[in-house]
């Protein structure tokens, strides 16, 4: 048996120890003793009690211990798993940064074999069946590809799946197949990694060559259209928002921009063919899209940079802007990080884990918990009855408590 929240059980053990102590330690009035010269004893307020270390009301104590421990067990969410069992979650990077050759397929097949959950991720992670990888990847090929897989989003999806698998196995391990481009990491990656409770394995796969990237993107030149401006055809993917608001930052394939932006545009048709989101606001709404028209990569930006703020001076924006200006620089974003950097980026940092807001964690209830709680409630209802029975019996026999 394993416990989902074992601290509840340990806390109940502490309470049970307190209950046992209360039954063990008691102040008892001393039995009056005869004294012939009592008439000379001064009349005073004296508490003739003594500290006793004697176990009293054993039956009642056992019942109360059972109630407390069962309550703790119910809150700790018990579940049964096979000893030494392991569930596996596999994250497969399917972004444009991956060299999707036969060797890669073989490694994916090998990793996915026996896995409980396989999640493919590029922009957004999606769960795929391990025995239908071919179909899943074929469908992914037809969709517009992200330059680098969003590892944070993939980790979040893996954590959700891991929570589900936690009831089925003693440990849940995570395997990530990716070339681990720098662009795949963001500020949340490390924090999300700390939320993964089990072992984590990284399998590095070959990254795509620059020529392949360009081919995938299918463009040789670039045009930027700022602040919702339309292209030469006069058609803009943007339309004005009913109520402009502010966004606190933006996620791009090469950088995360944390700065206040005025957000006055929204996509007119998010499902328009050929349109690909290349940057998102922090709340997930598209911030920049691109479309390839006649071999020209046209980028439509749903924001503007004013001269008053200093966003343009920041290195992150500079990197993003360079990437927009020169598609060749895309390679710097998808350049795989080396092993040391990867270890640093995916290290488990306990301090970061403690910063997680408990309200954000989802309370889960295992199937056994309600039954244990029910048993505890039944025993709790029986406790006053037992107490009364014992008191009556004590009264009949004349025993002191």
């Amino acid at each position: 048996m394993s416990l989902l929240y074992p601290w509840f059980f340990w806390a109940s053990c502490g309470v049970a120890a307190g209950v046992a102590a209360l039954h063990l330690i008691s102040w008892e009035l001393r039995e009056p003793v005869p004294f012939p010269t009592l008439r000379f004893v001064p009349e005073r307020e004296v508490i003739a009690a003594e500290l006793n270390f004697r176990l009293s009301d054993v039956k009642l104590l056992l019942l109360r211990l059972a109630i407390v421990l069962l309550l703790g067990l119910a809150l700790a969410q018990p579940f049964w798993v096979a000893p030494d069992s392991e569930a596996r979650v596999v994250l497969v990077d399917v972004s444009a940064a991956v060299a999707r050759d036969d060797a890669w397929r073989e490694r994916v097949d090998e990793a996915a074999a026996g896995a409980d959950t396989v999640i493919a991720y590029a922009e957004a992670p999606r769960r795929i069946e391990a025995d239908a990888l071919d179909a899943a990847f074929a469908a992914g090929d037809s969709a517009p590809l992200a330059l680098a897989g969003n590892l944070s989003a993939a980790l979040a999806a893996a954590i959700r799946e891991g929570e589900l698998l936690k009831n089925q196995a003693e440990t849940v391990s995570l395997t990530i197949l990716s070339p681990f481009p720098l662009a795949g990491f963001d500020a949340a990656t490390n924090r999300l990694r700390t939320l993964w409770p089990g072992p984590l394995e990284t399998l590095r796969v070959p990254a795509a060559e620059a020529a392949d990237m360009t081919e995938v993107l299918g463009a040789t030149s670039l045009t930027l259209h700022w602040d919702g401006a339309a292209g030469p055809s006069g058609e803009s993917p943007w339309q004005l928002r009913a109520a402009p608001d502010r966004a606190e930052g933006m996620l791009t394939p090469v950088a995360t921009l944390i700065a206040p932006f005025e957000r006055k545009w929204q996509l007119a048709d998010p499902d328009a063919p050929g349109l690909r989101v290349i940057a998102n606001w922090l709340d997930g709404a598209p911030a920049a899209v691109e479309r390839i028209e006649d071999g020209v990569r046209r980028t439509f930006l749903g924001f503007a940079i004013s001269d008053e703020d200093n966003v343009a001076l920041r290195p992150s924006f500079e990197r993003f802007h360079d990437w927009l200006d020169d598609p060749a620089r895309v390679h710097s974003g998808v350049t795989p990080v080396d092993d040391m950097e990867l270890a640093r980026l995916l290290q488990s940092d306990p301090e970061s884990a403690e910063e997680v807001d408990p309200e954000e964690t989802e309370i889960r209830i295992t199937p056994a918990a309600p039954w244990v709680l029910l048993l505890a409630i039944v025993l709790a209802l029986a406790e006053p009855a037992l107490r009364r029975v014992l008191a009556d019996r004590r009264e009949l026999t004349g025993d002191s408590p």
Partner: protein
Amino acid sequence: MAEPAHRLDPEDGRLLDAVRGLRWQAARPPRRTVSGAHVSRYLGPSAELNEYRPYRQGDEVRRIDWKLLARTDRAYIRLAQDYSRTPTLFCLDASASMGWPVATQGKWRQARQIALGLAAAARAAGDPVGLTVKDSSGDITLPMEGRPGTLHTVARLLQGVTPGGSAAYRLPHTPRAQHRLVVIGDFLGEEAEIARLIALTGEIVERGGEVLAIHVVAQEELAPERRARALFDVEDPSYRRNFDATGLGEYRNRFGAWRADLARRFRRRGADFTLVQTSEPPAVAVRRIVGWLS
């Protein structure tokens, strides 16, 4: 002589061995009553001539020494040293308070042994002894006896006593002259009873008798435990008080003042008063009392 049916308790046997040869002399020469071992206060008609005195009106005519009258033509009375006995009555307190400490019955055991030891000393002086005890089951009385085996009777009677109840003494209704009354107890009974006992003491002394009051006190009464306890009165369980070390000093003062007052009241009426603790060996106490009074 017939062997007494009662076998002495080993403890009593050891005590009697320890006080063997101890004779309890009368504190004051008694007037002539029954001839005994004590030198009488009066010169009597016995064969042991002491002196002559002239006949006075009222003297018995038969006591005139007729031969001397014939020689001297004067009437003289022949006087001789007389010997008498001092019957000793032991009056023991067998109330519940004497059965304390409950585990050892220490006070009662001490009182019983002292009574037996003093009875042995009195019998050694040729005095008859009697016994009155009022215990939980009723009255136990042994009339004055001076025969062999009286000590065994006293020992047997005392051994059968179980302290209990609240009535302390079974006092003689009328004080008899020339008697010795030995009262052994803790004197924790009703004040009216103690007052009656002290009044009787005065009457006995006035009639030429002796009264010895022996106050038996347990060591635990003089120095109670210091830890906090709930106490109840031995003879009245409804009377309760809590006690701890803070009240110890005041308790000792009160108890000591009461003991001093009790001794003063007895002595004022001519009685001898002594205190015996349960920790004192009975034989030592008996020798101390007899030596002091003789």
